[in-house]
């Protein structure tokens, strides 16, 4: 089940399911997101934390291999920038896609921003920061 066809099928099913689940949880709804981050409503937070807890248990039972990853110099600054951007625009990289799919047309601007940011990081990464990630990226 590791052929290219199987990986393609897995990506299509994962994408469809992820878009469906994330939309139905309400991650595309800016008001819900802000209520989660300000702990006014723990529903989405529990959905995320509960998912992580379930995954940890199942992976431990199935002895899924742990991939290595170094805590390189870019992790904390990158996560701070991402957290700020997420709180302002309401988008982690999958969310603007489902926002547009729900009819929020301005989220197209967020997608353009994400594209510019990703290209900027690759450009800056090769010129200015030479991070030793210790493994392939996620």
């Amino acid at each position: 089940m590791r052929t290219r066809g199987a990986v393609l099928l897995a990506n299509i099913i994962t994408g469809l399911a992820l878009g469906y689940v994330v939309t139905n949880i309400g991650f595309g709804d800016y008001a819900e997101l802000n209520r989660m981050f300000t702990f006014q409503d723990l529903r989405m937070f529990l959905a995320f934390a509960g998912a992580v807890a379930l995954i940890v248990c199942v992976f431990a039972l199935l002895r899924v291999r742990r991939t290595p990853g170094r805590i390189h110099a870019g992790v904390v600054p990158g996560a701070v920038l991402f957290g700020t951007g997420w709180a302002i625009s309401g988008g982690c990289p999958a969310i603007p896609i489902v926002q547009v799919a729900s009819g929020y047309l301005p989220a197209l601007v967020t997608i353009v921003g994400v594209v510019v940011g990703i290209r900027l990081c690759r450009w800056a990464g090769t010129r200015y920061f030479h991070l030793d990630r210790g493994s392939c990226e996620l």
Partner: protein
Amino acid sequence: MSTYWPWWAGAVGLALVTINYTLVTDRSFGVSSAWDRVLHWRRERRLERMEEEFTDDQALVEALAAATAEHFGTGAGAPAAPQAPYQVPYGESQPPPPDVERTPDETASVTGAGPAPLFTQAALLVSVFLGGLIAAFTSGRFQIRYDMGPGFRDLVTADPLTMVVLLFLGGVLVGFGTRLAGGCSSGHGLNGCGRLRPVSIVATAVFFGTAVGVSFLLWKVI
């Protein structure tokens, strides 16, 4: 306007998506990584071609090693494989075949099963859109809007121009930050934390904590 899923349904849904992907492909998935690779498709295609050539070379080396071992026997002193001289000193009693077998294992443990092919990453992004579309239509929430909803209007800005500027800047921060940190809420948050990778736990704690801080600022101060 229907209500959203209860928390446990969301948790089971997200967990099933992640676990299913891992079991089928033996890989992690990350939306920001998919974005990154699709946006740099020229470079990624070049890397994929190099990888294929490398795999061929590796297969050739392994076939030569097996043929040599068969011809000369697998005794301790036999020069069993082309890569053996720096791994197995003469006189060591360990036979060479385990060395030949161990190499792919080590490669796998360092790189995982290798990155998913580029076209499958593009398929992931398109499928996220279609999945979102299906969810929006089936729940009756689909509505073409030129704003980001009442939440954004009340908490951030009601001015359309400021909204566009902030969404763009926020998007840049998300794109730049996720790639600098090496993952996003799916790559680090679900797949990485699920595997208890220290780097993912640190990244998730920091981006979540920052988002909490900035959200409180937007809610209470600004």
